[in-house]
């Protein structure tokens, strides 16, 4: 059990933010504050003075926190990038999970490490869910596109569904393209020709 680390989670997606906050406060025993709006981020962080700031790797406002970490003097900073001493293995794990963390100077490593590990695990899980969701969505869209292309071929050339599909697949193989790309081109062309 860690005792009362204050964590600020900068995250605009409420579901994601809540999941991370719940995990950190339940398993990590931390006090967690969520910040969704990044305007005046530097001032908000200064006011809250958290021990740790967690922020999505993809968030452009990361650079604002960098600024803050220099404010106290570049070599005597109040907030340091985590992985002090350049622990690149830990950094890589964080990058893969899509999270960046800033840690106030003086937070003891043994208190900090479980929190960071938990954050990485939680963000990583969210990242995987997001990727899977995106893949599913794309597959569904491609499926629809291929069905439309099949329909166009069946009408225009009097083919059966199987024949239309075979023709699409052969064209894709001949052109070294993905089936969905060929289908998209056909649907666009058919749209242009009316």
């Amino acid at each position, binding site marked *: 059990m860690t005792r009362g680390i204050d964590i600020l989670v900068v995250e605009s997606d409420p579901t994601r933010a809540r999941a991370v906050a719940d995990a950190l406060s339940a398993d990590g025993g931390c006090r967690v504050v969520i910040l969704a709006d990044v305007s005046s981020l530097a001032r908000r962080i200064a006011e809250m003075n958290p021990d740790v700031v967690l922020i999505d790797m993809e968030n452009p406002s990361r*650079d604002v926190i960098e600024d803050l970490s*220099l404010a106290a003097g570049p070599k005597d900073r109040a907030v340091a990038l985590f992985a002090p001493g350049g622990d*690149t293995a830990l950094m890589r794990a964080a*990058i893969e999970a899509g999270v960046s963390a800033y840690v106030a100077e003086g937070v003891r490593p043994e208190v900090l490490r479980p929190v960071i590990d938990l954050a990485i695990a939680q963000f990583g899980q969210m990242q995987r869910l997001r990727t899977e969701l995106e893949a599913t969505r794309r597959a569904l869209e491609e499926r629809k596109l291929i069905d439309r292309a099949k329909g166009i071929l069946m009408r225009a050339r009097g083919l059966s569904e199987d024949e239309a599909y075979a023709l699409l697949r052969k064209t894709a193989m001949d052109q070294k393209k993905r089936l969905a790309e060929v289908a998209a081109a056909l649907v666009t062309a058919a749209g242009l020709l009316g």
Partner: protein
Amino acid sequence: MSGLAIRAAYVPLVDAAPLIVARELGFAADEGLALDLAQARSWASLRDLLAAGAVDAAHMLAPMAVARAMGLGPALPPVEVLMILSQGGQAVGAAEALAQRVAGLTEPAPLARAIRAAGPARLRVGVPFPFSTHVLLMTRWLGNDIDIRTVPPPLMAQALEAGEIDLFCVGEPWGSVAERQGVGRILLPGRAIWASAAEKVLAVRSGWAESAPDTARALMRAVWRAGRWLDLPANRSMAAEILARPEFLSLPPEVIDRALTGGIGGAGRFVTFHEGAATFPWKSLGGLIAALLARRHGLPEGPAVTAGSAVFRTDLYRLHLREAGADLPGASQKIEGTLSHPTAVASERGTMILGPDRFFDGWIFDPLDG
């Protein structure tokens, strides 16, 4: 020379063009290099990707590499500069109300005086990162008693609209975006303050280029050729089209075109990728950036200049680009800030013409004074 592969990180800006063009127009493929590009949304993320080995090369702000060499910022593995990717490309501007009060002035010195007179006592200046050419330009131009604030470029227009900053210095297309939204106006190109303002560099982790010499050579040659292609005026509209694509900057091509085809800052090019020996990583350039950073952060100048010069790898540039056809200067450093006009200098092929490198106030950096 086939079967080489590298992953390089960039931040979606107009001056990421050399890496994007190297990939998209086949300059990398011609060198037998599979160039994979990773987009970073912040300079901190780009730095971390490089430090952690998630990428092996990066489109980096020149002062970031120098700052690391000086021990500024987080303690991460050091980086080196293989070549300069771009000169200029910074848009210096003001919030709409302030811009209106100084309208008509186009010379940096009178403009600075007018801004001082018209603006608040302590000017708030938005820049993309604490270690950036933008900071060096703005402090050179307005002095050190300004309030420098980091604002992510895509949020610069919003910060202007919210009245959080009076001035900005940002890479294109974000100055133009602010203008289009009617919240700010571009007053000067960065080059009006420093004619040869080194902006982005091709950075790698220290020692990487020696550990993968063939990949380093292929990457440098591809990027150098992409820069040469980019500086042919006829190619710039096509470059804008490529950069505009959803997977890169994802913005309307006309917004990007303005930076590339001379719509900003009057005479002279807004951004250069090749001409005037723009890509040569002069050791004196590393030293100059270090000297300015040292002043800003209150560090002794001598050791900073030594450290900053050392990470600009003129030796690797000579080694890997000589055969590609790059002309090479006789010296690896020069007195910075003395040239007002394009000037021929001694070089291996006898064809080297340096672009102007003057500061608006005539400041000169002599690397041997340090």
